């Protein structure tokens, strides 16, 4: 499971202020904690700063990379911010995200080609958000094919099936799971990731739905998620699910996690 730590995002409380004030200690501490908890990528998103986003992104990438060894996930819908983030980044970053919207696809692809990076592909196009499993599969395949044609390696593509609230459409969970399975079946090396928490929007006890959904999706092929790695319960659940799905030889990961107390949740 490729865990993308989501905590450095200026839409979270207190973060915008920390980034605006260039609070090095606060940001570095949050980055280190996520790495220690098992994050494979540290997401950096400062989109709420709008006009100052580009400079803030450069600062974030430099500040975080000073203290962690894992690569970053450069997170912005703004190609300029992605470009500056990638310039500053050392090693192979993950870009979040590209979509099949014509203009955004072209602009983001240019930047991807210039820098050797992996990319999250959101299954939406100029017709909007996906509706049902078919839409997700169709746009997902188009993105994979177009990216591969442009020279992006299959294993560098992370498809995000776009999670919508189960509270407004009770079929959406099944649609997402079916899409995850179909895309995984056809493209073995492509990764599937998602921002989980949308699934539980508008419902009580959201964490329970988020955690349950991640295990259901893992059983269908999800192998990455944008989550809070400091939530020990979701991390323990992911560890256990990996073992049960046969992705943990000799159950070594599970046993190691248990011995270090990570499963005492």
């Amino acid at each position, binding site marked *: 499971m490729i865990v993308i730590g989501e905590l450095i995002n200026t839409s979270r409380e207190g973060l915008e202020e920390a980034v605006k004030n260039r609070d090095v200690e606060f940001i570095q501490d949050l980055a280190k904690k996520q790495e220690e908890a098992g994050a494979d990528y540290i997401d950096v998103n400062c*989109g709420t700063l709008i006009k100052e*986003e580009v400079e803030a992104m450069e600062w974030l990438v430099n500040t975080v990379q000073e203290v962690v060894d894992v690569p970053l996930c450069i997170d912005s*819908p703004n190609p300029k911010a992605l470009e500056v983030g990638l310039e500053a980044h050392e090693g192979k970053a993950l870009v979040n995200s590209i979509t099949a919207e014509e203009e955004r696809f072209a602009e983001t692809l240019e930047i991807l080609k210039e820098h050797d990076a992996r990319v999250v592909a959101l299954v*939406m196009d100029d*017709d*909007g*958000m996906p509706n049902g499993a078919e839409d997700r599969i169709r746009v997902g395949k188009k993105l994979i094919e177009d990216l591969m044609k442009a020279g992006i390696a299959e294993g560098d593509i992370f498809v995000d099936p776009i999670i919508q609230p189960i*509270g*407004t459409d009770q079929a959406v969970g099944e649609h997402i799971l079916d899409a995850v399975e179909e895309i995984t079946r056809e493209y073995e090396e492509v990764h599937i990731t998602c921002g989980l928490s949308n699934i539980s929007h508008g419902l*009580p006890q959201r964490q329970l739905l988020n955690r349950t959904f991640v295990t259901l999706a893992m059983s269908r092929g999800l192998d990455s998620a944008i989550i809070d790695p400091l939530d020990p319960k979701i991390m323990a659940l992911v560890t256990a699910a990996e073992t049960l799905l046969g992705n943990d030889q000799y159950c070594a990961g599970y046993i190691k996690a248990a011995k270090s107390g990570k499963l005492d949740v």
Partner: protein
Amino acid sequence: MSKMEKIVEGVIAGNIDRVAELTQELVDEGTKPSEIIKNGLVAGMDVVGGRFKKNEMFVPEVLIAAKAMHSGMDIVKPLLTEGESSSVGTVIMATVEGDLHDIGKNLVAMMLEGAGFEVVDLGVDIEADEFVEAVKEHQPDVVGLSALLTTTMPAMEETIKSLEEAGIRDQVKIMVGGAPVSEDFANEIGADGYAADGSTATDIAREFVS
């Protein structure tokens, strides 16, 4: 419990058939349609809105309550005499140019309808000029602009500017919302209000029309 109170309860409980039944009974007994709307259907949704805000009710419950309200509305609306309105006010809603993310906008539209507003949902990726045309056509009280992407937030400002240039800015109140949008941003671009969620949007829209 009076039939009117039962309608309120029925809306809150999301009892679609029961609300329709009771509404029909009241109509047959000669109760004024506008009274059924105000003291029954909309009154029920007001309770729902309040509970939603306090986390005592949740999105699917609000959806089913709105359906129950509409089951009654469908019966009384055709009976309204000219000049009588079933709506508290009219709101135009859309995501701005370049933005296709409509989950939030749809939730807000649903909450507004539940509160008795007439909602004209223009859809997604709506250019400033289209907003201008829609305001001229529908004469709304409120315009709601939604953006999820930081890259499309400037289109909110452009929309407001276009309404100004068309000389119709002051005919409407403008509220904005979406994950990256903030109170500060709303003030900066000259919007009249910022709503963090559907129930806040409803409160603000009510203030605007009162």
